[in-house]
């Protein structure tokens, strides 16, 4: 419990200080802004509560983009890593390309994706998947290659086929690496989804933030950011929990 006490106290102190600074107008004075542009935590909480159905609707849109995007990245990343692991030719040919995908600025590619894939969920999925693909693929490949060569020899003398070696030795060895990759992916997926919505969208928390920012509805912007952060933390926690349930030998 004491593990949580210290960070909880720190967060409470920060929120308290913010509340004090914002409600007295001191924070707005320091920033040289109109007080209504600097909402206090209590105003943000009120905005959260009053706009709960609007926030939930938009959060659901963003969550779908994130979850489906991660699923696409997992399927593609695991498949690609496996292909590179099983074939030296594929790995030598494709590895530079894989690194290349990470070097391409998604910011520059997103508008192209909108032109190609339209204004629906398609381009957001593509942005999320593109960003999540790299950490999942690289981690999985590292995991598959980290297998003890002695263990493979041992399996061969126990009459294992290539497929059995993959299933009984290589895949379980790679599993913790896959989870590491997925956790990194989850952390950046939310950012990717918001960015995808900023380029072109009709709904989603990113869309909402952009609209409210233009209308100077600052409390609701903060409320949307809080929901985004909560979703990202919850997803990360979900993956960490799944890892603990699956990888029981560590």
């Amino acid at each position, binding site marked *: 419990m004491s593990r949580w006490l210290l960070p909880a106290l720190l967060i409470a102190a920060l929120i308290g200080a913010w509340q004090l600074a914002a409600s007295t107008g001191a924070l707005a004075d320091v920033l040289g802004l109109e007080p209504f542009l600097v909402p206090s935590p209590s105003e943000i909480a009120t905005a959260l509560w009053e706009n709960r159905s609007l926030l939930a609707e938009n959060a659901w849109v963003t969550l779908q983009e994130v979850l489906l995007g991660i699923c696409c990245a997992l399927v593609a990343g695991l498949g690609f890593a496996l292909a590179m692991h099983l074939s030296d030719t594929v790995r030598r040919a494709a590895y530079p390309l894989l690194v290349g995908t990470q070097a391409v600025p998604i910011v520059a590619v997103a508008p192209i994706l909108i032109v190609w894939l339209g204004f629906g969920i398609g381009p957001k999925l593509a942005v999320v998947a593109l960003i999540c693909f790299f950490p999942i693929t690289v981690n999985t490949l590292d995991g598959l290659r980290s297998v*003890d060569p*002695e*263990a493979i*020899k*041992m*399996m*061969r*003398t*126990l*009459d*294992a*086929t290539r497929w*059995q070696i993959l299933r*009984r*030795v290589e895949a*379980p060895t790679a599993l913790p690496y896959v989870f590491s990759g997925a956790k990194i992916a989850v952390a950046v997926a939310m950012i990717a989804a918001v960015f995808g919505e900023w380029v072109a969208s009709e709904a989603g928390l990113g869309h909402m933030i952009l609209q409210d920012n233009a209308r100077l509805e600052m409390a609701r912007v903060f409320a949307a950011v809080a929901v985004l952060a909560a979703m990202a933390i919850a997803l990360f926690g979900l993956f960490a929990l799944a890892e603990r349930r699956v990888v*029981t*030998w*560590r």
Partner: protein
Amino acid sequence: MRQDTKMPTEAVQFGTADASPSRVDPPGAAVSIRGLHHAYGDLDTIERLNLEVPPHGVLGLVGPSGCGKSTLLELLAGLQEPGAGEIAVGGSSAGEERLAHCAYMPQRDLLLPWLNAIDNASLALRNRGLGRTEARRSADALFERFGLAGFERSRPAELSGGMRQRVAFLRTLLSGKPVLALDEPFASLDAITRAEMQGWLAAALRSDPRTVVLVSHDVEEALYLSDRVVVLSSRPASIVAELSPPSPRSADRDEAVTDPEFVAVRERALAALHEGSR
């Protein structure tokens, strides 16, 4: 073929009769190495080696570190192909056949941490297509006999070093192959556990003889467990001496290794080892 020990003529199967009826010890199954030469890159590791192991004989190999003993076992087990010469297991020198006839136990136990003890031990049976329940049933009786009863469902991390080594040995046995290639099977254990495990392995081989090639850096271990011990020189490995210990695998290990005749053979082995390391 050298026949310096009395060997049972009947094939004895090690607990896997119902699991793998096809893997009965074939008549004349033995190890035969003729003019073996092997190199690792430009480095000659094995030079003109000739060795024979009769069926159910135990051959000990000792030699300085890095002399190619482990390579020899990998060649035997069909994990590598020799540069020149012939290495045959069960009468066949084809790599596939060596792999099929020879079970290899590496230095480290290499138990898979995500499988429990009994699933680790029965890996070979699973690889041959047996279901989990059937494979476990085949391994069950041996767990009892090897003093592992009650630990069937324990993960390797929960077992002591000696128990892990026994599970690894069980895994090698359950592959049902007539020839065992053991690479310093007890090297990672402390002195007391190692002595216990040597006595235990001797008992296991007394009740169920197998053809064994045992690599060890421990002269005493090799002399106690083997019918014949070959001392190899440093790289490239060639034979320096061949020794026959007085009473291989006798029931009382402590008595056996302090027997004056045993001690004399050990001294000769150590002298040969020094000579070969030069």
